[in-house]
């Protein structure tokens, strides 16, 4: 109950918090605190066509278009649209979102280029 025990317990708490933050940052990758996900467009299809992201958190999505033709990454549910010129890549930030399924599609090939983000 002395001041020194208070100080040592708060130091211990601080250290624990710090370790937590460091671990969190490490798991989130070296680039930034924002988790990064990558998908590819090949032959007008998305690979992977489904991927999971954490709920309530903004994530960075990098879309590589391996086709020669442009594609528009589009989603009504994610509220996103971005043209990705052939053989380039584009970055789109998505979220934070509530848990659920959020379909996306390639506007220029809506029948084949389909996928969904699963938020959990």
């Amino acid at each position, binding site marked *: 109950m002395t001041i020194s025990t208070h100080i040592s317990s708060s130091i211990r708490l601080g250290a624990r918090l710090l370790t937590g933050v460091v671990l969190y940052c490490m798991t989130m990758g070296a680039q930034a605190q924002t988790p990064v996900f990558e998908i590819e467009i090949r032959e007008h299809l998305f690979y992977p066509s489904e991927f999971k992201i954490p709920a*309530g958190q*903004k994530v960075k999505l990098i879309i590589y278009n391996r086709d*020669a*033709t*442009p594609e*528009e990454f589009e989603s*009504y*549910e994610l*509220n*996103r649209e*971005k*043209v*990705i*010129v*052939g053989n*380039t890549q*584009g*970055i*789109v*930030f*998505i*979220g*934070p*979102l*509530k848990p659920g399924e959020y379909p996306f599609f390639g*506007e*220029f*090939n*809506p*029948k084949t280029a389909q996928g969904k983000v699963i938020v959990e």
Partner: protein
Amino acid sequence: MTSAVIIVLREVLEAVLIICMLLASSSALGLRFRWLPPALLAGLVGALAYALSLEQISMAFEGFGQEIVNAVLLLMITVLLLAHNILAMREFKAPEVSRLPMLSLAILSATIAMAIVREGSEIYLYVYSYGVVAGDMASVLSGAAIGTGIGFSLGTFIYYSLRTLSARHCLLFSSIMALIVGAGMSSQAALFLAQSDLLPSSEPLWDTSAWIAESSLTGELLQAVIGYESSPIATQLGMFVGALLLSLAAIGIGYFSVRASSEGPGAAGTTGGRGE
């Protein structure tokens, strides 16, 4: 082919709405349509330039050049529609008294050109890469023609509906439309800025997709007119309300900047000059 129809119609819808609304205003403002071909041409050239340099633009600003250009275009159109409202309300209150023909021409032309740049570039990109390069010319072009046709018939309908009104009512109605369309566009601009992490994003405020899906025809029409979004974020709502209030203020400024009759141009009317 059906996907070509839908793709092109979606892009055409927004531009057609603005063009036809402003054409109706233009004749109510006593302007001839001579300004239209140069404005359309400027828009098409701009669209082509945007589409051809899309790769460089996309790479600019740390990969968010596209979002920034789109947001700037949308916000500039919003400001120009605001300026349109000032002019329209001046004419509404005192017809033929304090017209600003050159300024009106500049504002109408710039708005239409910018609306075409944004939508036209995507149509060009689609038609060029899937029609010309991928060699699916017939179905892409016929689809594009049908999409454009539907868009323009809708536009003609809007134009003639507005023209059946008296000049003053046409101006009033166009201003209200411009107010709503502009607010919708600034909400779209907010989305582009959130997508590139330049404005904060949050979980959507609500979700009305069960009632009106954005992908439905009603949803698409509402999106073009009021910027309908089934799951908007707070930033969007803020921009929407902000633009709505500014546009209402513009209507007020236009209305009170002229005297109802006799006297010449009002002093406060110069606010309309800051179109860009």
